[in-house]
């Protein structure tokens, strides 16, 4: 069950990722559309996902956000199951370094509605407001038009193309790296 609200946009809310969300995270991370776009080369067990959530919690430099669609009047803290629907997650890693690194994914059933863009924009704002990072990095495979379009729409600049750096879904793929500097976010 998602935790308390951290931030809210027009349609999505960001809630704390709890240990109990392992099943939802596992289901999505196993889905080929999510798995391949994240470069996850093997599925994970519930126990592994739970362990990862716990490691993220203990890691000083990592902030995890569960992307949720709340019903009207959903409780800010510990909502009931019928009050909110988790649809994805955004993670910011290295918030204690020069540049934080963003990772995100959305349940394929909810793709195409702009939820990811709304959620990532909220996290970008949260990271720049809460941590004195100089910039934020993110990456996507060359074939992932949706993810690249999302980053470009938020003002990220393409900074590097690592050729054939990953083997994903039967072929070698380029990794595209993006960056957004604080001064660009401010303007």
């Amino acid at each position, binding site marked *: 069950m998602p935790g308390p609200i951290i931030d809210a946009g027009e349609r999505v809310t960001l809630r704390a990722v709890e240990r109990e969300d392992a099943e939802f995270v596992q289901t999505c991370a196993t889905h080929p559309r999510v798995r391949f776009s994240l470069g996850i080369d093997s599925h994970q067990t519930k126990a592994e996902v739970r362990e990862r959530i716990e490691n993220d919690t203990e890691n000083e430099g990592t902030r995890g956000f569960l992307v949720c669609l709340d019903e009207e009047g959903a409780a800010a803290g510990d909502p009931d199951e019928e009050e909110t629907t988790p649809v994805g997650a955004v993670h910011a890693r290295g918030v204690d370094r020069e540049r934080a690194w963003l990772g995100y994914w959305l349940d394929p059933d909810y793709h195409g509605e702009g939820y990811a863009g709304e959620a990532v924009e909220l996290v970008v704002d949260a990271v720049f407001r809460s941590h004195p990072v100089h910039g934020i990095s993110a990456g996507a495979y060359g074939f992932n038009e949706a993810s690249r379009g999302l980053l470009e729409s938020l003002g990220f600049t393409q900074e590097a193309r690592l050729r054939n750096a990953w083997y994903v879904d039967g072929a*070698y793929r380029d990794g595209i790296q993006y960056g957004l500097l604080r001064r660009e976010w401010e303007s």
Partner: protein
Amino acid sequence: MAALSGGEPSFVNATHSPETDLVPLSHLCDMPGTVFRRGDRLALRTVEHEDAEFIQRGHNHPDVGVTLGLNRPESETEAEANIEDDEGDPLNVGLLVCLEDGDEPTPIGKVRLSNLHHTRPEISYWILPEYQGEGYGTEAVGVLVDYAFNAHEIRGLQAQAFAPNEGSVGVLENLGFTHEGQLRDARFRNGEHVDVVWYGLLREEWEDD
């Protein structure tokens, strides 16, 4: 010279003039380990526990450590622990760069191959300032690159360097690596944010070279 991945830093190197008022580092070293691969003037030798003092002195030298992305001192105990970690790790290969021009080999730097399970493992390297400018970096890294492609079923190699670090970038360009991008202001070093450049070399590019 070097890259930022894994336990050991890796940003490559330095073009600065030596300005060494330190004891010549080579004199601190016991007999280096056995030869693993050879170049014309250099050999890549196994890293032994006794090399901790040499490696530590290199990492703490401002003209080396800063270019590697190191921002805190490294004790000899830490250097020893890093050597031990690498011994038990099949995914990383570290080798001592030694000049073979006399009776005894002279250690002058270190090269490293990291994340051998990745599609493109990462290389990093450093050469002591007093030995820079002689092409030793290019020779040592060239031997490492040949070893990497010949011994491992990898798609390519990659490396990062601080953009202002001409010596390190020059090594990659000499060896036919392609500039794949530049992360703006990505690291804080020497009192300012500097760009980090990415380089890559694919197997067919290595074969053609």
